[in-house]
């Protein structure tokens, strides 16, 4: 478990949700758990904020939903990636990599940062 848990960068929640859902159909609780596990608990997400993002992406046609039962037999809404969502995931992953590379290059500049 990491010492620090970092706030999410704006816009990164969508791409992570899409990525997690690309593995199959999941309900919101499972999506939250997956993100936590996959980020090795580095990302701190207020769990509720996941749902407006899910509903928004559903209305955009990136994901679709259906009702079923959770492992503990609770009524649960399952989300799955649509073809549009898969395309968006590809675009957003590429955009993220460009951004990360750019930021990484700047931060890797060969001069020393003085401690404050």
């Amino acid at each position, binding site marked *: 478990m990491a010492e620090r848990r970092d706030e999410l960068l704006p816009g990164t929640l969508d791409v992570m949700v899409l990525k997690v859902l690309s593995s199959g159909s999941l309900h919101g609780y499972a999506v939250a758990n997956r993100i936590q596990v996959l980020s090795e608990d580095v990302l701190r997400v*207020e769990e509720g*904020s996941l749902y*407006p993002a899910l509903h928004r992406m559903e*209305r*955009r046609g990136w994901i679709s939903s259906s009702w079923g039962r959770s492992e503990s037999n*609770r009524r649960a*809404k399952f989300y799955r990636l649509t073809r549009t969502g898969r395309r968006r995931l590809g675009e957003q992953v590429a955009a993220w990599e460009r951004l990360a590379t750019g930021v990484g290059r700047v931060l890797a500049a060969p001069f020393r940062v003085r401690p404050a």
Partner: protein
Amino acid sequence: MSILERLGLYATRPDGRARAEIETDIRDELEMHVAERAAAIAATGVTEEDARHQAEALFGSVDTVYARCRATQLGERIMLQRINFAILLLALVALAGVVWRAEQVTTDRDAAFADLQERIASLQDDVRDVPPLQPVLAGTASGQLVRVPMVGQLGSLPRRASPSAKVYVLGKVDRPGSVEWHNRLTLLMALAECGGASEFASLSKVRIIRNKRVVREVNVTEIMRTGKGDIELEKGDRVHVPESFF
């Protein structure tokens, strides 16, 4: 989020189900998450009550999340509701305006009509024998013109004596009968209009009857001899020329 999404417009069609059903689904979905999390926390040995509190704290404000999800799912409806309300409001304002204006026009028209009636009535007091106001058709078959007499013209029509403004000459005149009265009509003039005295007339005792009484007995021979003393007649006077027995 785009401007369209802010207005509640998304790429997919809105959920067509009843609003209450959609709202229940959102509530259920959020509750499921908190319940699952609480159960997971409780499994580590925490009391159920504490587990529930911790789960809620991790989730954040359920009401805020619910409101955002609801706005996303019902966005179109909320927007349409606002548009409907605005249209209804505008329609009401427009209707009120139309009603108000119609009342004004009616009031104006009624006032104008009353004014017109008054003017016609006052003109009709003065004017006699004027044909009733009627549109007059004139012109050729190809282009007929409709001429409507203007009320304003009535004032300039010639005034005629009232039909009742007459003087009646009876007795020994050539043509007994009525004579049109005017305000300078004299006894001699009235007699002249009736062709003058007949053969056996007694011109020395001509009577003027007014309001059922003999008001004068006039010697017309004397007036004709001297040229003086001719009498002005009044409306409705009766002039009687008696027969001479000599």
